[in-house]
Structure formats: structure tokens, C-alpha cells
């Protein structure tokens, strides 16, 4: 049994459903294949609320001790993730794989080897973004970030890298998600100016509001979109004005992402931010269980890195059945998944990034690094 702890209510309530569905899609896939040794896998959802540590812990406690889940896909926001990890998962010895907690601090938290994440830490992405910007010839940039640990961490990392490479951040202005109006932020950003506006936020939250308002006021016409902003819904919502903007998203030159999108369409939903990561997180849990022939967290935690990384046969979304068969046959696998997953260090995504160009109101991957 796998628990899915995400913020179904609260600030990221609009992202959570796609993430949950992606994870459930992976579980479904495994169940349908019938190749999982330990029988049918159930999933239960729990609400992390994203912000309320107490409620998130209560939910996790319920999932682990009452629903008796064997592992947790989650949580989402770094704050509640840390709380759940420290106070619930670790005492109970339950593996947690977070699809979206990107705070660098989590890399160094002691975790008894129970914590993994399929999203890369912000530190790495900052480097990539700075490189990309310099290459494309943007010397000055304004930066707006969502005011939480993700946004602030990423912003700091971008600023550090960009400045050290000779660029200039004209202004760093935070924005609060879910607020009424962003004209003040845009006004400040516009006055500071810059060749491009980096929006380190979420694509259906304040990030989108900032872009919309900037375009409306004709403050910026080029945007840089980090991972939280990548998804087809954004160009669709904003329209042709966004064409020509660039971005970055975890991933390598692998067909995984496309396959994931197809699968999602077939299952009746659109891919969204952290959807691929969620799929991968759930898949990893199940593959590791198979590999170590145990559903006990304390046992299979050792196999997570093993199935995620080379050597072995590459596994893409939609091939979980095959992967299970291979494992059963005693073969090595290398789970690539939707995000070209590679776990490094204390169990976090290595951070290969794809370069995004918005064209024809679609996000297109045009390069990798």
C-alpha cells in the first residue's frame, strides 16, 4: 500500500490533483501488468495542505499507522515534507519519495536513508539557468519569485550564479501566491527593467499572474520559466505573447517525458508541473519493493538507488510491467522514467535539465544540459 500525501487543499491545491493522478497512474500500470510479486497495490491519499505542518503530520500519521501504508509518495512543499519526515516517517521507518520538495536544506537533513526526491535541488537549477541566460545573450534580468522556500531558494541560486557569470539582476521581487493583484510587483519589476524577466513561481499561481500583468502593461516581452512554470497550460492560457520565451525543466534527451504525456492523455488528464516527478516517485517505490523482494520500508530503501541508476536496461513510462519482469528475472534495470531520473548523493535527482522554448503556444524541448 502506498500513501500519497499532497496539498489537496491550500495554496497548491490546483497542482495536487495532477500529481496524485500521475502517481496513481503508475500504480495502476503496475497492478494491470500483474507482475508485482506482492499482489495488488492500493493507494490512499492524504492531505498535506502544503502549509499546515500539524495537519500534514496528522494525515501522515493516519496513513502510516492506521492505513498501514508501506511507503509514502510525498509530501510536496518542503516545510511539511520536513515535518512529516522527521516526526512521522523516520520514527516509523517509512520511505518517503517527494516529487516536488526542492529545498537544498533537505539534502543534508539526516534521514536514515529513508528520504528520496525525484525533483532536483534548487541549487543545481540556478546554475543551469544562469548558463542558459548568458548563452542566449541576456545580460540583465529582473527576477520575481514566489515567496516560499522553493522560490526564494531558487532565486538566491539564480542570482548567485548569474552575477558570478557577469550578468546583472536588476531587482529581486517576491510575489505571494493566491493573491488578488500583481500590478504593484509588475510596476516595480518594470521600472527596474532588464532584458528578460525570470519568474520563479508556479504556472497557475502568482507566476502566471505576474506574466499576464507584465504582458498587459507591456513591461516585459521575454520570460524565463524555471521548472515550476513549465506546462502546456501556461502558453495556452497566455496566448501567442509568450512565444519566444525560454525555460528549463529537469530531464534529459530521453523519450520519457513524451511517453508520460501520452499516458496521461490516455488516462484522461493533462500533464502539469511535478506530474512526471510524481509518476517517477511512485514507480521507484514499487520497483524498489520488487527488487528487494520486500514491502518493508527499512528493507527496500536500500534498493531505491539501485533501480533508479545504471547499469541495467533503461525503463520508460509505460514499461513498468516489463521492468518488474526483468527484476524478477534477476536482471538489472535503470529507471529513466518521465524525468530521466538519476539519483545521486543522498538520494536526490541529479539534475539534468532540458532547455525549453515556447513556440506555437506549446512548450518544446530544444536542448539538454
Amino acid at each position, binding site marked *: 500500500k502506498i500513501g500519497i500525501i499532497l496539498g489537496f487543499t491550500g495554496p497548491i491545491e490546483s497542482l495536487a490533483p495532477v500529481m496524485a493522478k500521475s502517481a496513481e497512474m503508475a500504480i495502476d500500470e503496475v497492478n494491470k501488468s500483474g507482475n508485482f510479486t506482492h499482489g495488488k497495490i492500493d493507494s490512499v491519499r492524504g492531505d498535506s495542505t502544503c502549509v499546515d505542518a*500539524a495537519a500534514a503530520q496528522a494525515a501522515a500519521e493516519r496513513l502510516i499507522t492506521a492505513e498501514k501504508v508501506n511507503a509514502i509518495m510525498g509530501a510536496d512543499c518542503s*516545510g511539511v515534507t520536513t*515535518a512529516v519526515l522527521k516526526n512521522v516517517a523516520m520514527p516509523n521507518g517509512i520511505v518517503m519519495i517527494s516529487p516536488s520538495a526542492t529545498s537544498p536544506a533537505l539534502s543534508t537533513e539526516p534521514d536514515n536513508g529513508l528520504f528520496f526526491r525525484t525533483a532536483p535541488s534548487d541549487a543545481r537549477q540556478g546554475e543551469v539557468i544562469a548558463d542558459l541566460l548568458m548563452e542566449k545573450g541576456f545580460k540583465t534580468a529582473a527576477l520575481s519569485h514566489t515567496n516560499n522556500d522553493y522560490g526564494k531558494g531558487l532565486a538566491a541560486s539564480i542570482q548567485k550564479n548569474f552575477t558570478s557569470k557577469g550578468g546583472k539582476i536588476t531587482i529581486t521581487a517576491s510575489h505571494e501566491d493566491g493573491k488578488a493583484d500583481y500590478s504593484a510587483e509588475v510596476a516595480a519589476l518594470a521600472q527596474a527593467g532588464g532584458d528578460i524577466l525570470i519568474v520563479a513561481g508556479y504556472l497557475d499561481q502568482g507566476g502566471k499572474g505576474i506574466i499576464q500583468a507584465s504582458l498587459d502593461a507591456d513591461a516585459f516581452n521575454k520570460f524565463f520559466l524555471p521548472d515550476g512554470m513549465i506546462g502546456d497550460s501556461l502558453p495556452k492560457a497566455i496566448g501567442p505573447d509568450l512565444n519566444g520565451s525560454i525555460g528549463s525543466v529537469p530531464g534529459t534527451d530521453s523519450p520519457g517525458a513524451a511517453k508520460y504525456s501520452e499516458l496521461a492523455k490516455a488516462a484522461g488528464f493533462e500533464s502539469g508541473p511535478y506530474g512526471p516527478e510524481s509518476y517517477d516517485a511512485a514507480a521507484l517505490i514499487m520497483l524498489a519493493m520488487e527488487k528487494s523482494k520486500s514491502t518493508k520500508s527499512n528493507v527496500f530503501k536500500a534498493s531505491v538507488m539501485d533501480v533508479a541508476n545504471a547499469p541495467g536496461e533503461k525503463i520508460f513510462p509505460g514499461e513498468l510491467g516489463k521492468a518488474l519482469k526483468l527484476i524478477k528475472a534477476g536482471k538489472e534495470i535503470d529507471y529513466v522514467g518521465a524525468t530521466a531520473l538519476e539519483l545521486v548523493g543522498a538520494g536526490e535527482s541529479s539534475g539534468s535539465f532540458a532547455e525549453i522554448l515556447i513556440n506555437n503556444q506549446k512548450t518544446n524541448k530544444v536542448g539538454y544540459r
Partner: protein
Amino acid sequence: MTNASRIKIFYILMTITLLFVGFFQSWNVALTIFNLCLISSIMTLGINIQWGNAGIVNFGVMGFAALGGLANIIISMPPTQNAWEAGGEIIIVGLMIFTLAIIFSIILFKKSNLNKRIKYLISFAFIISAYFIMRHLVDTPIEKIEAIEPAKTGYLGGFNLPVLLSWPVGALLAAFSAFIIGKISLGLRSDYLAIATLGISEIIIYFLKNEDWLSRGVKNVNGLPRPVPYEIELQSKEWVLKVSNYLDTPITELSSIIVKLSYSLLFCAVLLIVLFLLEVAVKSPWGRMMRAIRDNEVSANAMGKNIKQRHLQVFIIGSAIVGLAGAMLTTLDGQFTPVSYQPLRYTFLIWIMVIVGGSGNNFGSIIGGFLIWFFWVQSEPLGLWFISQITAHISDTNIIKSHLLENAAHIRLMFMGMILLITLRFAPKGLIPEVKR
């Protein structure tokens, strides 16, 4: 039904419910809920002494709770290497200059008999220039401090003292800010006061969110020390193993239970002390005077009671209790996350507890805290269960069913709303109303 029997019935019911959770979900869940219930009850007591007894509407719960939480950092975290050398003192000096300017303006307003407009002008000019002087002084040290390993520290850190000390300190911090907030806003009438306190507490939260040098801002402070042992440590203890064998429970579960129980004991002790002190005060002439002030300020004033001072006093006491509970909550969470201080979760939820429990009755407040927190947590599984029940006989491919299941999490909000509305419908004065004295 008399109040005494109401109290008995509801307390027994609540106990049974929690035991029920223990047996049918798990003891860990029951204890998690119980601990938060205790903390909520303490907060509720703080608000109740203000609203129920003195008629002060304090919607600043989240601000005071956050200040209590901040105390955890200041007291218990280790100081950050080099941070103080980087200019910690200068920041303090800068803040003092600003504070002095404000105090000066206040004195100017109180003591001088200049024209009002001139007073406004002078103090405005004074505060603004003090603001810029402060900015000039503190900007560089702040930058420096925040640059010290920003991913891990980047703040001043604390004093590395025992974490339990942060509870009284949290109460003091809250009391101190309540003093200032009270001075500013207590003259306002109820609805205005509600929004003003809410507004000021939002300002506090924004301060904590954005002043990284103090609290790491939205980057959160993790790994606060605990007053109780860690589960992992317990799991390797001899006696725990023995008990585990004896009770035939897995050691992981048992260790969690032990930790939670120790928290429960601590919290219970605090709750009982606070409750006792408040009950004594409320039953004495002090309580009578407070209620008189609540009923009619003009006439209480004419009867020689110093309304402003009394309001301020009770505002400080209540807020300190909220701060205390806030500090306890942060200790329990083991981390300080400023973004989590949202009006919905703190201000509104706590107020619902007070009103549902019965304003003006401390025992009611406690039961309100228990009941509402219980449902706040359990409405989630209840909601899911409810939806799966009503959709049980619809075929899996039906759009309506999938739509319902998909949005089942939101039934939680509806459930909360309904519980509140239903309780207030059948007990408009709360479950345990104010007693006639």
C-alpha cells in the same frame, strides 16, 4: 441541562471518541490528534479570556502564535558561526534607533500641546528619517548575515538554551507585542478591532517571512531541539524493547507512542495550570469587573474602572497564552515555517473553537478546541469515506463519479463548515454556555 452535566457529557464523549480512534485507527493517530487538541485548547483559552470575559475581539491569533514559535529559534537553536561578528549588534542598534523615534513621537503626542497637524508632521518626519537611518545601518550587516551559508543558516541563530525555556519566552514575546498592538488598536470597536488585529498579525507574519537574518524567512528553520527523546534513540533502549515484547507491539509504533505521550503529559500540565489560573481569576471580582466592562464600557468607566488599562491587561494575558501555545506547537512540529501561519488555520479555526465551545466558559473553550481540531483532522478521511459511500453504486467509468472522487478532498472544507453551522444551530451559545454567576 445544567452546565455541569453538559461538561461531563461532552468530556466523556470526547474521551470515548479519541479512544475509538485509538482502537480503530491507531493509537498514534489518536495521540497526534490529542496533542494538537491540547495545544488548540490552550490557544482557545487565551482567546476566550479576551472575548468571553472582556469582549475584546482578537483576530491576531496567528501573529502571536508565530511569535511564540520564533521564541523556539531564539532560545534553542545554536548561534550561527560568525553571524554576530558580521554585524548582529548593529542590527539591534538600528532597530533601537527606530524604536526610539517611535517612542519619541508617542511622547510628543502625549505631552506636548502643539497643534495637531504640526505634531503629525514632526513625528512623520522623525519616523521616516529614523527609518532611513536604520536602513542605512542595518542593510549591510543583514546582507552579510544572510550570505553566511544561506542554504543552511544565513541567520543569527539562537542561544542554544533548553527548548522548554522557549515556552515562557514565547509567552513573553507575545505579551510584549500585545502591549504595543493593544496600545495602538484597543480603542477601536469590535469589528474594526478584529480586522486591525488581523492586519497587524499579517504584518508580523510578513516580517518573519522576509527578515531572513532573524528567522531564515520562508526558508524555514528545521531541526529544532526536542524536550523529549527521539524515537530512534528509544528504539535502541533496553526497556523499550522489553515493553514492546510484553505488549506485543512493534517497537517503531511503541517508540512513537512514548514520545507522543511525553508531549501529552507536558501539554496537559500546561493546560491544567493555565486553566486553573484563569478559572480562579474569572470567578473573582476581577472577572466580574471584566464582564462589566464588556457589557458597558461607558458606565464601567463612570464606576471608576480604568477601561483602557484593563483592556490592555487582558489583551496581554490572552495573547501571552496564545504565544505560549504557539511556542508549544512549534516545539512539537520541530520546525518553524512562517508560511504556515495563515488566518484560516489559526485565527478562524481558533475562533470557531471558542464560539462552538461556548464563549465565556473556559471548559467550553477546551471542549471546543478538542472537538474542532478533531474534526479538522478527521473530516478528511470522513469526507473521502462519505464520497466513496455515495458513489459506491455508480459505475467506475461514470464521469460524475470520477469528478466527485477527484474533488473529494474539498469535502473537507464543506464538512468543517457544516459542523460549525450545525453546532451553532443547535447550541447558538456554544456547547457549554457562559454560566450565570
